């Protein structure tokens, strides 16, 4: 952690960046995002097991960008998010300074996208056994049971859109759900409106979600939205052999056609 | 419970549609229910919520004068979902209307004074109501000057009324279009409204100035008025913020502690200067 603080201090002192996005002490058990703009305050940066948020959500935030060039304390979730943002032309190499950090808090020097890509290749980013278990539980349900299960979960939703807001991949300036000409998705948070919203979001994240789990964690009603996105990751792996968020110039499976693409969806 | 449903609109029949300019239309609306028509009254400056069922509601001022009885008019530009749906309607169709809401132009206080109306583009409608209201009570006021500008000749709204005002001996009418917006046969002024205002140089003595227009026009018009000697208390304008309810509940239109729907839409420059710049 001292390395990160030192590096952050240096970057702010020599004005390479104007803000360091990192973790600081929160009001409760979990750390919170902090935005250090003063080299003297870099000792507020912390890193431990309470630092969970995927900070990449702030990279494209208008108000944060406005502060100037960004350095970001980057866990593997942040790094993978950066790879997606780069692949989607939202970030160029050198747009930000990446302060890589291992899960046990060691600083890793990642000067460019290539270094990030090489580092990510050394990590195991497959979904965890616990996540696999959850998927199994859903898969074991009959169609009717599954429908009922999700209806129950979606019935808790009140459309606060915390799932969308917490997601680094949900950066569209105008979300499909906010479009009213035509009104694709009902605004009201009733059964249909909730279901259409969550299915639309899951589909939009298929092949883009890096499984950081922010959507589920953000949900004040504890809807396990990550199960939808886990499932998508599983499907992407099975159908296209793709692990998303591993390189800065990825081509998205669902927006590309290849001759060898499976056609098993045609029935 | 004796209270009425605040959200229940009147049914209004579109009696007449006037194409004012590209994408700009005026509807003349008549109450479907005669009793409602008789109980209805409004004052100049007030606004309403106009609705197309299935699409939603949209907020605009009442563009006709309260002195014109038996109908109300609204002028709107086709821009969002509701105004697009409104644009597709025809004479004889029914729409919903709630109102009137908001405060008024205090024309009773203006008795005996001269009036200077300055409007730009699609912002003439809120002013048209007060212009006609004052012209219908012409003996109450001294000089009446109207300065109206639009981007181009085609964008001028109320073309017939502009001519009517032009021809009236008791109105000084100045019409202008932005440079490049003139046609070969255009015989009005060419220039931006603030420039033409400065050129026209109306007297500020015992005069009330009413300004409605796009933010950029307003921004450059106030300094000219100040130069001409108008005090902030004698300059009136209207604010437009996004609204849903129209009566101080939905929480959208407030500028600081001031709710445009209840405290406005009419404000003096003195009042405006006390507001935070969140409009």
């Amino acid at each position: 952690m001292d390395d990160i603080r030192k590096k952050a201090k240096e970057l702010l002192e020599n004005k390479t960046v104007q803000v360091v996005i990192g973790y600081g002490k929160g009001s409760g058990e979990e750390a919170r995002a902090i935005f250090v703009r003063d080299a003297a305050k870099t000792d507020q940066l912390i890193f431990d097991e309470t630092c969970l948020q995927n900070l990449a959500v702030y990279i494209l935030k208008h108000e944060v960008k406005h502060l100037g060039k960004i350095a970001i304390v980057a866990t593997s979730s942040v790094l993978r998010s950066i790879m997606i943002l780069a692949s989607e032309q939202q970030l160029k190499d050198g747009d930000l300074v990446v302060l890589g950090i291992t899960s046990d808090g060691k600083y890793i020097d990642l000067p460019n996208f290539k270094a990030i890509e090489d580092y990510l290749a050394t990590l195991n980013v497959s979904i965890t056994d616990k996540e696999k278990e959850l998927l199994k539980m859903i898969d074991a349900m009959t169609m009717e049971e599954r429908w009922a299960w999700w209806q129950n979960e979606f019935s808790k939703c009140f459309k606060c859109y915390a799932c969308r807001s917490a997601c680094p991949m949900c950066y569209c300036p105008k979300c499909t759900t906010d479009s009213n000409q035509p009104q694709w998705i009902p605004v009201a948070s009733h059964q249909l409106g909730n279901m259409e919203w969550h299915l639309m979001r899951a589909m939009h994240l298929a092949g883009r979600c890096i499984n950081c789990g922010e959507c589920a964690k953000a949900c004040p009603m504890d809807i396990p939205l990550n199960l939808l996105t886990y499932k998508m990751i599983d499907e992407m792996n099975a159908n296209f052999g793709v692990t998303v968020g591993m390189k800065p110039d990825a081509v998205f499976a669902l927006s590309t056609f290849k001759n060898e693409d499976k056609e098993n969806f045609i029935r | 419970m004796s209270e009425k449903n605040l959200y229940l609109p009147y049914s209004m029949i579109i009696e007449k549609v006037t194409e004012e300019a590209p994408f700009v239309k005026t509807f003349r609306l008549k109450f479907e229910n005669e009793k409602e028509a008789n109980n209805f009254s409004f004052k100049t400056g007030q606004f309403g919520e106009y609705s197309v069922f299935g699409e939603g509601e949209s907020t605009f001022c009442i563009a006709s004068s309260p002195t014109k009885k038996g109908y109300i008019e609204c002028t709107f530009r086709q821009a969002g979902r509701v105004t697009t749906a409104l644009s597709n309607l025809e004479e004889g169709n029914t729409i919903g209307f709630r109102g009137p809401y908001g405060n008024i132009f205090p024309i009773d206080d203006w008795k005996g004074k001269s009036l200077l109306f300055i409007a730009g583009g699609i912002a003439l409608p809120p002013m048209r109501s007060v212009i006609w209201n004052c012209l219908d009570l012409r003996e109450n006021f001294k000089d009446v000057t109207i300065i109206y500008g639009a981007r181009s000749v085609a964008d001028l709204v109320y073309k017939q009324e502009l001519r009517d005002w032009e021809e009236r001996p008791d109105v000084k009418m100045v019409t202008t279009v932005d440079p490049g917006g003139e046609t070969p046969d255009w015989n009005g002024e060419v220039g931006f409204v603030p420039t033409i205002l400065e050129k026209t140089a109306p007297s500020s003595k015992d005069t009330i100035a009413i300004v409605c227009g796009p933010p950029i026009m307003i921004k450059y018009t106030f300094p000219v008025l100040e130069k001409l000697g108008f005090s902030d208390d004698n300059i009136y304008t209207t604010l437009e913020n996004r609204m849903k309810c129209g009566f101080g509940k939905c929480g959208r239109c407030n500028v600081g502690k001031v709710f445009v729907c209840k405290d406005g839409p009419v404000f003096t420059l003195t009042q405006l200067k006390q507001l935070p710049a969140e409009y």
Partner: protein
Amino acid sequence: MEIEKKLLKKASLEKLFEKLKADGKKMYAPVKKDKLVNFALVDTFGEICDDYILTVKSAKSVAFPKIEKIVDYEHSKNSSKAIDIDVSNFPEVVLWGVRPCDAVGFDSLDAIFTWDYKDNIYLARLEKTSIISFSCFKSDNNCFCTSVNGNPGGTKGSDILLTKISNGDYLVEIITEKGKQIIAKAPELFEAAPTEEKDKNLTNVPIKFNVKDITENSAKFFENDLWVEQSLRCIGCGACAFVCPTCACFDIQDESAGKNGTRLRLWDSCCFSLFTMHTSGHNPREVQSQRWRQRIMHKFSYMPERLNVVGCIGCGRCSRACPVDMNISEHLINLAEEVKK
């Protein structure tokens, strides 16, 4: 009305519930489902959860639901017609297990929904609602009712307040006429008031700031770097507003099915970037710091000044619900300190 005090034996609580239920009232009470405690329609006393600090969502939805029909309509090409909502058939509701802060929350909603224009739909729902509150014997760091004129055993806003005393029985405070009517449904259950002091059975919620420092000085900090500082990590969702007992901002949307449809009032939030956006694309509250300021100022400046009520009851729900730890009491303490600078 002077508050009347009684005793309700522990064993009689269920009987009171049964009486009210048998009277045909819809009983809404805290229920634990999938780990979260929230108000839900309950059939049996056994479903009610009594071990909770606060429900995740507030009790406001009983009078201000997330979706409310405000107008029905019929429309076709040549005719359209609005149809009024029949508010007379709204159900008689008992809100059971409300916390004293939540009960006060209805004051803020009342102030908004009756500000000159009286919202008959909200009022009709509220009129049919009786509030049976239970004093707080537990609290957490997010609670700050005592900083906003509240109290874990406060009677304001409730029809009846029950406080559990040391032997497990309840001290009953009958606060309103509605409360009296409820007691009258089962007078046999109530006995002479206990002598035990109420206060010693309440949780202690320390005062974190003086609310007047904020409400009376708000003009001083409208323009202040604090708003940017505080809101940088805000991600602009509506979680805070939707769990809040006093947030009343709403949207209006039409939903049609064929030639019939309904106009709906839906919860909305000032923290959403599109909330104030004009059709032209101009947005008076363009950045999150302005939207965050609006949220705080609305509750602590505009509402006190215009409606004579503080728009926050100190339940701390927003802090608990926030995905990014926008802790409201911490921010309010900062504001109160700012004033003293």
